């Protein structure tokens, strides 16, 4: 008995210490991944949702890395202006067939040259529905694309020689080419796309710092790509993307000088960050617009009655007050459906006064609508509560209640998924929050996907023939000013119909540590990494 007791104690202790040891065993390895070498800038990031394949990257966490690893035919500079990247020229006589000529000195970071086939193969792969790439729909502008049938090779793509290919596509096609979906892929990618996504090889300013540089949920280490030849210069040695679960932790690290660049200030620190960071704080206009969309099929919001109610709801909102109180002045009130950082932004459109606060007029319009058919019950304004939106949605509901004398209340969805489901099924039952970040800095991209009849993200189910025609004409227009004029005209139709109510452009907020300089943010709210200097 005595012996069994001792044995028992031994087993228990052995088991307990095994637990402890298993916990401690791997402690030695990781500490090398931090901000080791000088000249490597550390930047906050979130874990990419999927493997780092450009055509499959649809969110910011992966997008930042992909944009650093690749260079497309063109790129957008800090002002959102298109500049030539791998392309030497993109020309067309008829705005339908485009001839793309490549620089002959561009190479992937593994040393293989960037040829016409690298673009054509990558695009055909991405457009083939069988490969289920998140950005597949982006290739719908190219001739021969099919959304449902697997197409091995699109008829609109033809290789002329090693450095030339032609594309039969829509007229706005060249504007889009800076977007990550259009990056080229080296031949090795097609052998095993899943493995490639974990250890991608690009042709950009940076490359992965060796195999397994992507430590999931911890960091992604990039170093300067010395094989890069091209129009841009890199002023630092590399980028260490640190993955944070919360922006608050990242902000704390910025204050403690453990992080060089933070590209978004957590909303809990809006009121203090300019004071805490001083001239290291950044606050400028961004490409993300926030709107309240109202389905065209919602009772009381159709026809003439709907027009009146939509205008009333828009004019009953004091955007400045919400921005001041809730966003601490980091957002900019909307004057159109695009964003100040894109080509085609306007603040003097006819009918834009519907976006200005005017409680008396709002009340009058609402009463006129009630005369057609009285609105009873509660007007619910919907959002998901797993993001930072609940506070301002409540403010919107309060302002409607106060300024229109109706009952309004927030409708909260527990998750973004559930919210999206109801939006797509058209059963939200009231105005709902929507946001749009442009894929490229052009006004067309802020209207076509959202308001064109039957478009993928047209969650308000808006349809207006005159609007569609104007967009079609604008996309075929080769003269820049004439195109913008058409787009402005289209926006004026939107202002009259208000399929969604533009609220504000989300500001770009950020900051940097004392050890880096030259921090500027591009049109898409992402810092221009290659220009940042350190040490």
């Amino acid at each position: 008995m005595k012996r069994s007791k001792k044995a028992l104690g031994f087993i228990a202790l052995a088991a307990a210490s095994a637990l402890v040891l298993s916990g401690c065993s791997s402690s030695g390895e990781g500490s090398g991944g931090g901000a080791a070498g000088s000249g490597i800038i550390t930047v906050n990031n979130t874990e990419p949702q999927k493997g780092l394949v450009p055509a499959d990257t649809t969110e910011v966490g992966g997008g930042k890395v992909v944009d650093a690893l690749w260079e497309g035919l063109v790129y957008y500079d800090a002002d959102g202006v298109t500049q030539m990247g791998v392309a030497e020229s993109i020309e067309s006589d008829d705005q339908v067939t485009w001839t793309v000529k490549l620089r002959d000195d561009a190479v992937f970071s593994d040393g293989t040259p960037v040829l016409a086939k690298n673009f054509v193969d990558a695009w055909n792969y991405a457009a083939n529905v069988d490969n289920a790439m998140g950005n597949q729909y982006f290739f719908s502008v190219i001739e021969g694309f099919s959304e449902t049938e697997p197409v091995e090779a699109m008829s609109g793509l033809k290789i002329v020689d090693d450095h030339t290919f032609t594309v039969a596509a829509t007229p706005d096609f060249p504007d889009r080419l800076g977007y990550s979906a259009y990056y080229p892929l080296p031949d090795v990618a097609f052998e095993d796309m899943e493995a490639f996504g974990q250890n991608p090889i690009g042709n950009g300013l940076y490359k992965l710092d060796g195999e397994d540089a992507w430590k999931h949920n911890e960091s992604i280490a990039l170093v300067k790509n010395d094989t890069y030849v091209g129009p841009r210069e890199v002023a630092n040695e590399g980028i260490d993307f640190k993955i944070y679960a919360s922006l608050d932790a990242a902000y704390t690290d910025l204050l403690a000088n453990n992080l060089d660049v933070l590209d978004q200030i957590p909303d809990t620190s809006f009121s203090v960050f300019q004071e805490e960071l001083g001239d290291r704080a950044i606050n400028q206009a961004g490409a993300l617009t926030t709107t309240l969309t109202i389905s065209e099929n919602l009772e009381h919001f159709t026809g003439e009655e709907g027009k009146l109610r939509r205008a009333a709801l828009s004019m009953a909102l004091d955007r400045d007050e919400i921005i001041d109180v809730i966003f601490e002045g980091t957002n900019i009130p909307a004057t159109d459906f695009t964003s100040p950082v894109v080509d085609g932004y306007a603040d003097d459109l006819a009918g834009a006064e519907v976006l200005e606060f005017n409680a008396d007029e709002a009340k009058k319009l609402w009463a006129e609508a009630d005369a057609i058919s009285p609105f009873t019950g509660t007007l619910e304004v919907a959002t998901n509560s797993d993001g930072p939106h609940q506070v301002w949605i409540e403010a919107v509901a309060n302002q409607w209640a106060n300024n229109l004398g109706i009952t309004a209340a927030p409708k909260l969805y527990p998750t973004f998924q559930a919210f999206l489901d109801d939006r797509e099924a058209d059963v939200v039952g009231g105005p709902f929050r929507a946001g749009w970040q442009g894929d490229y800095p052009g006004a067309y991209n802020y209207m076509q996907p959202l308001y064109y009849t039957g478009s993928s993200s047209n969650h308000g189910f808006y349809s207006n023939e005159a609007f569609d025609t104007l967009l079609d004409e604008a996309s075929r227009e080769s003269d820049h000013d004439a195109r913008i004029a058409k787009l402005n005209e289209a926006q004026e139709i939107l202002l009259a119909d208000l399929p969604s109510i533009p609220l504000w452009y989300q500001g770009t907020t950020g900051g940097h540590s004392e050890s880096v300089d030259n921090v500027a943010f591009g049109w898409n709210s992402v810092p221009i990494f290659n220009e940042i200097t350190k040490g």
Partner: protein
Amino acid sequence: MLRYILFRILQVIPVLLGTTFLIYFMVFAMPGDPVAAMFGDKVPSDAVLERLREQYNLDKPFFIQYLLYLQGIFVGDFGMSFSGEPVSEILARTFPVTIRLAVMAIIISLGLAIVIGLFSGLRKGKLFDNINLIIGLIFMSIPIFVIAFIAQFGLGLKLGWFSPTVGAGAPIQDLLLPAIVLGVSLYATSMRLTRASVIDTLNQDFVRTAYAKGLSRGRVIPVHVLRNSLIPTITNTATDFGILMVGATVTEGIFNVPGVGNVLFNAILKGENTTVVSFVTVMVLIYLGVNLVVDLLYAVLDPRIRYV
């Protein structure tokens, strides 16, 4: 005794089947389509969504999905996360970090609890005891995220004694601050249990007998009193370990610890069935294992307890 241990291990099987099924069902029943949510406001074509659902088995009925998942586990395949990493690798990367943090927190909490609890019990009703009880009460009633934020801001950011967040690889020195926060937030309950038990034991006959035999205080207190007072504390520690496995989510978020809590939280938000269920399964296993160890430790502390 071996029969007992074997029996306990066999018990794990139905518990595991039950929990995986329940968790799988709950994640499955969560509203929203995880595949559509990958794209946010930008909606890909239906065909692409269908292909993705196929890839993650989301197009199949619930039971088939669950059986496919179970089948995978039997050959050691826990499936893939959306970002293309095998779930088994995520498990292998995050669990050591969280266990390390939990063990550090337990050591801190137990150390505080046993030392302070013993002295408090020996000086029952004196000034030390009263002050200690008040402090314990305060720590029990402050929510952990408050302690965490104050510690991060004060000790980490302002004084610079600790790293305010945990860096890559989660080295021990970075984990110190979150471990202290967790330890401090947990110690009060164990301390009160130890104290009460010490007071109780001091009044037992065998303690009086020990003194009467002429044994010194230095022998009676550690060997006779403390040893007999530790059973409730040890039991509570097992519960604490369970709490730490799951409940460290808040702390892990604040200190950016690349551990279980963070990954699990994100996986739930994304609706990644395979990741969530695998994580919970491993948590259940650890919890059961710790409980077994604790049950065996009883026999060491109290010879009257035997397992047949």
